[in-house]
């Protein structure tokens, strides 16, 4: 039960920061929060039930019926890494002490909600924790109160509320039929009444709601806006974690632990995923803004994840979770690099940049590695997860979708090559002679994330046995 500390500690940290007797400066809050993230990341390597009796007694006082499996642990690691990156970027980018303080508090609340979402085994609690994450992200996007950010946040709020209403109606219908909302009850009910039209409608509503939250292609309207308009550390956090957790992780969790797969639902997933992959990639090619291109690339990659577990096999789920992890790492790396560009160059149009490779060696090298990983070039981690997705599709006899996945890889390559050429290579544009490398915190984060990408890619056999297989088979 000691893993419930991952929810309780951030909650009590926020309470502790805000007690009225003293005033904690933003720097200390940043320090404590990043320390917490490091501890959370390392707790991944501990055995699940490692605990001391004192902690056990303390936690059991809260009587939380959380459960932790391999997928939850992998997600816990991911959320710690992304939150750490985001907090360090914040430390480098934001000067105002109060803003740092508010930001860290909101990140901690969001992290607590996220960790809770990984542990809950009840569809109504899933709704509650998703709303915690969503509510914190509305505030985080609008934290600087500039025009575009407010607009993006409002748009996100409206879309997400519609999605929430859909999800809640679905939960209500499932509750009506099952008589309870925990995963086991609903799962038993679904095996019995799965063919009923009302139940099927409820499941489809749930999927559509989660698609809106995860920004899958026909419902993606809010996503590029909020990535673009959000302040840099927030877009690292949003792109790396929030949409992946609220949308895609929950989808995987629901199908893995509750509904199971059947052909009708699977075909819905596969079709939307392929639309998302192809159209997202084409839209990314047309973009001129760095962050917006990354947002569309994110939509395309989310399509890969959905495609992976749409294969409907355990191997497919493993591939999807692994790609989710990889994607979180390299997408947050790319957004960290965009933050570095934003801070040092202060231009976001790609056509106005050029030749920055000589001036910002770390940023350009790490972003090359991230893009190679996204496109699926062999030794890097992205290659292995894409290979697993394609293999899962192929073995599940869904060869058409496997071919789509391979072909769309080329599109991914195209838009990242365009990006690299415009931003980092070529002749140095005028006015950029005095550009320096990004501050130490940002380069540290990019090197760290880059190292994760490379190491996971090189040590893939161990990763496969150690993490992914144990994550899915339990």
């Amino acid at each position, binding site marked *: 039960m000691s893993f419930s500390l991952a929810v309780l500690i951030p909650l009590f940290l926020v309470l502790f920061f805000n007690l009225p007797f003293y005033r904690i400066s933003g720097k200390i809050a940043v320090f404590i929060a990043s320390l917490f993230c490091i501890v959370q990341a390392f707790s991944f390597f501990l055995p699940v039930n490692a605990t001391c009796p004192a902690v056990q007694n303390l936690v059991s006082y*809260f009587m*939380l*019926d959380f459960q932790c499996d391999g997928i939850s642990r992998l997600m816990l690691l991911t959320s710690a890494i992304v939150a750490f990156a985001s907090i360090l970027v914040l430390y480098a980018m934001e000067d*105002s002490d109060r803003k740092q303080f508010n930001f860290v508090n909101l990140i901690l*609340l969001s992290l*607590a909600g996220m960790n809770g979402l990984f542990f809950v085994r009840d569809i*109504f609690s899933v709704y509650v924790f998703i709303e915690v994450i969503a509510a914190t992200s509305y*505030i985080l996007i609008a934290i600087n109160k500039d025009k575009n950010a407010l607009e993006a946040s409002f748009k996100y709020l409206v879309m997400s509320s519609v999605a929430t209403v859909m999800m809640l109606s679905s939960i209500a219908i499932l509750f009506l039929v099952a008589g309870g909302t925990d995963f086991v009850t609903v799962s038993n009910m679904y095996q019995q*009444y799965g063919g*009923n039209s009302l139940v099927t409608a409820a499941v489809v509503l749930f999927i559509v709601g989660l698609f809106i939250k995860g920004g899958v292609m026909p419902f993606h309207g809010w996503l590029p806006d909020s990535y673009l308009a959000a302040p840099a550390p927030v877009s690292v956090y949003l792109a790396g974690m929030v949409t992946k957790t609220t949308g895609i992780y929950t989808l995987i969790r629901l199908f893995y632990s509750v509904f199971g797969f059947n052909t009708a639902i699977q075909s819905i997933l596969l079709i939307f995923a392929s639309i998302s992959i192809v159209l997202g990639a084409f839209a990314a090619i047309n973009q001129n803004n760095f962050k917006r291109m990354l947002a569309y690339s994110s939509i395309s990659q989310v399509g890969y994840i959905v495609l992976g577990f749409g294969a409907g096999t355990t191997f497919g789920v493993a591939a999807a979770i692994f790609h989710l992890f990889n994607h979180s790492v390299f997408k947050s790396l790319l957004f960290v690099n965009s933050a570095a560009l934003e801070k040092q160059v202060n231009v976001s149009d790609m056509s106005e940049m050029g030749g920055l490779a000589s001036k910002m060696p770390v940023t350009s090298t790490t972003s090359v590695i991230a893009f190679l990983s996204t496109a699926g070039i062999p030794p890097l981690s992205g290659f292995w997860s894409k290979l697993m997705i394609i293999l899962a599709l192929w073995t599940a006899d869904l060869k058409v979708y496997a071919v789509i996945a391979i072909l769309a890889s080329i599109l991914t390559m195209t838009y990242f090559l365009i990006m690299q050429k415009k931003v980092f290579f070529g002749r140095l544009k005028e006015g950029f002679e005095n550009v320096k490398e990004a501050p130490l915190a940002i380069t540290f984060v990019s090197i760290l994330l880059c190292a994760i990408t490379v190491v996971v890619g090189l040590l893939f056999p161990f990763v496969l046995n150690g993490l992914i297989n144990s994550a899915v088979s339990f």
Partner: protein
Amino acid sequence: MDSIYIHIILLALIIISSIFAVSYARVIRGAIILGIVSMLVSISLFLLSCPLAGIFELSVCSGLITVIFISVISLTLPPDEKQRKVNSVSMMKKMVLLVLLVLVCGFSLYMLDSKNITFVPLMQNVQESIDTRDNIWNLRHVDLIGQALILLTGLFAVVVLFKKDKNKDKK
């Protein structure tokens, strides 16, 4: 269950008044009618044997939320005559959507009449009734943690969004 008619009347009133709430050009009337909708919903909840939830709905949704709406409306500028004219959406779009709405309502009524919907067989055995308070405190503490988190988030919403930026005022 007293009579089915009271449910029908309540539902009809809820739908009609929510359409009214949406169609007023002046938002303040819409907000007040939304409060009335909440009140009707809370009566409905009471009939559906959810008295505590009904009280919650009555006090929070038709009380607090209406207050929030009205304070936001009065904090923001009242739209003057010119703007109100601009605010009216093109009749065309409105009409198309209205037709769609009527069609869906008609379809729903048709569904109501048809007998061949496969309804889920419902459980007949009623659980021995647990008190709602016990249910919340003993069975749903995970949600209570979530509630604590979201209330803290709401606190930060007020701190972040409603506070004036001191730096910007100096500029």
